[in-house]
């Protein structure tokens, strides 16, 4: 205390500031290890968690995206965390459901498993390239993710069609299938444009939407023309 009084008297000329050169600065500079850094460590090392946890996390992400497709609104959830598990699952399911048709006995006929894969993935890649060339701001994998997830209504329609076909293949079943496929095709196109719409420059939206429309139309056509083996 006395030392500080002397020091302040020495520098009495200075109006506000009293800097004492005698009092040393002390303290502890090291950052204490608290609970925050431990959490940060845990977030990055997912090697320690049980496998069930890992799988459930991915499944939850996929499931939440399915729900976003079911109720499409302008949201960026699909775009922010893209993943390709959902599209892969949907593509495999669709290709499996399109098997077992009249094609099996003949060599002509329905799409083979590989053809469905090629159409879905190759088509998505071409549409993505198209939208990027037209100046879209969406990234390559985000666009693939959106297009893949929006196949979900069409896959559901395929499942419904197969169930309807169990009951018979007459005109009524055809009418029902036509209505179901048309509705799901419209839903898919609407959902994907709801997600992709904002990323395009304004004068070119129709140019980007048309290939998406064609893509889902072709998939819808494949579903509608599926005829069961008799």
């Amino acid at each position, binding site marked *: 205390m006395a030392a500080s009084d002397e020091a302040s008297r020495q520098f009495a000329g200075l109006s506000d500031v009293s800097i004492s050169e005698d009092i040393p600065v002390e303290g502890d500079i090291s950052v204490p290890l608290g609970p925050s850094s431990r959490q940060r460590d845990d977030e990055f090392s997912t090697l320690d968690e049980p496998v069930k946890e890992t799988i459930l996390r991915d499944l939850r992400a996929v499931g939440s995206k399915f729900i976003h497709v079911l109720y499409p609104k302008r949201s960026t959830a699909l775009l922010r965390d893209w993943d390709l598990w959902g599209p892969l699952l949907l593509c495999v399911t669709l290709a499996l459901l399109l098997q077992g048709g009249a094609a099996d006995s003949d060599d*002509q006929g329905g799409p083979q498993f590989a053809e469905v894969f090629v159409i879905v993935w190759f088509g998505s890649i071409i549409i993505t390239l198209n939208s990027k060339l037209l100046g879209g701001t969406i990234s390559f994998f985000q666009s693939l993710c959106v297009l893949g997830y929006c196949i979900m209504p069409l896959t559901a329609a395929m499942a419904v069609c197969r169930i309807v076909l169990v009951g018979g293949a007459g005109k009524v079943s055809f009418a029902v299938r036509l209505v179901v496929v048309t509705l799901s095709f419209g839903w898919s196109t609407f959902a994907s444009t709801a997600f992709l719409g904002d990323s395009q420059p304004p004068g070119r939206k129709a140019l980007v939407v048309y290939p998406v429309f064609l893509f889902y139309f072709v998939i819808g056509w494949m579903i509608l023309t599926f*005829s069961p083996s008799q």
Partner: protein
Amino acid sequence: MASTNDPFQFQEFEEAGNLLDANRDATTISIEDDDMPEKQRKATGFTPDVDDLDPLASDDTTELLSGQKKSAPIWTFEYYQKFFDIETHHVKERIIGSMLPWPGKNFIHVHLRRNPDLYGPFWICTTLVFALAISGNLSNFVVFLGKPNYKYTPQFQKVTIAATAIFSYAWLVPLGLWGVLLWRNNKIMNLVSYSFLEITCVYGYSLAIYIPAVVLWIFPYEWLRWCSIVVALCLSGSVLVMTFWPAVREDHPKVMIAIMSSIVLLNVLLAVGCKSYFFSNPEVVVPPTGNLTATALIKAPSAT
């Protein structure tokens, strides 16, 4: 503000408009409003002394602001982006222009205007491929509707064949034509020469008229099919002929006739080939039962 005659001393540079006030004669192109430099001039009311640095400054800003695009190398993404530099209404105008040829209106000059695009040709070809496959399938289905021994098959391999035919017409024929025109251009100085992309663009857009024609082919009436094919051929053929006429007009008559007739012939081949391959109903369409009963009726009175 110290006026610097020493070029090595660091100094701040302002906007081009202000910098070049000292030298009004310098050629620059500014992308901002012309009003802004004037307002700034009035506000600040000083002219920096940059006479010695002026030529350099004006050159730099000229190059930066002139808007010249450096052409990107062929393996980058940006190179292909400049072929997609169109808006929706451009595509609409080009499609309509390819369906309604007007005598004297050259498609390339009127619609392309030095901005050929790859969007139109590619997506029109793709749409035509799927339209052809689906319509062919549907026409078979309609013809055999109700017949008990017909098993409906989607026939997906037709998509591959249609794709090969149409894409090779739309991309290989322009390549050949461009090569021929280039060769003739070396021999005879033509006034008009088209780039490969412009030729591909014309060919791609000229296929647009076939899409509604192909949809009309679903109905199994031969007269309808032949009518629509003739109309489509006339329209698309005339677009192609009017586009390439100025390019071969000054040439030797034989060469001119050869080129023109090969353009038209290939177009005809494509249309007729597609029709006969995809829309030939496998069994001969026997005259419908109505005709048979009519002949039976005619025969019956003579029998009695």
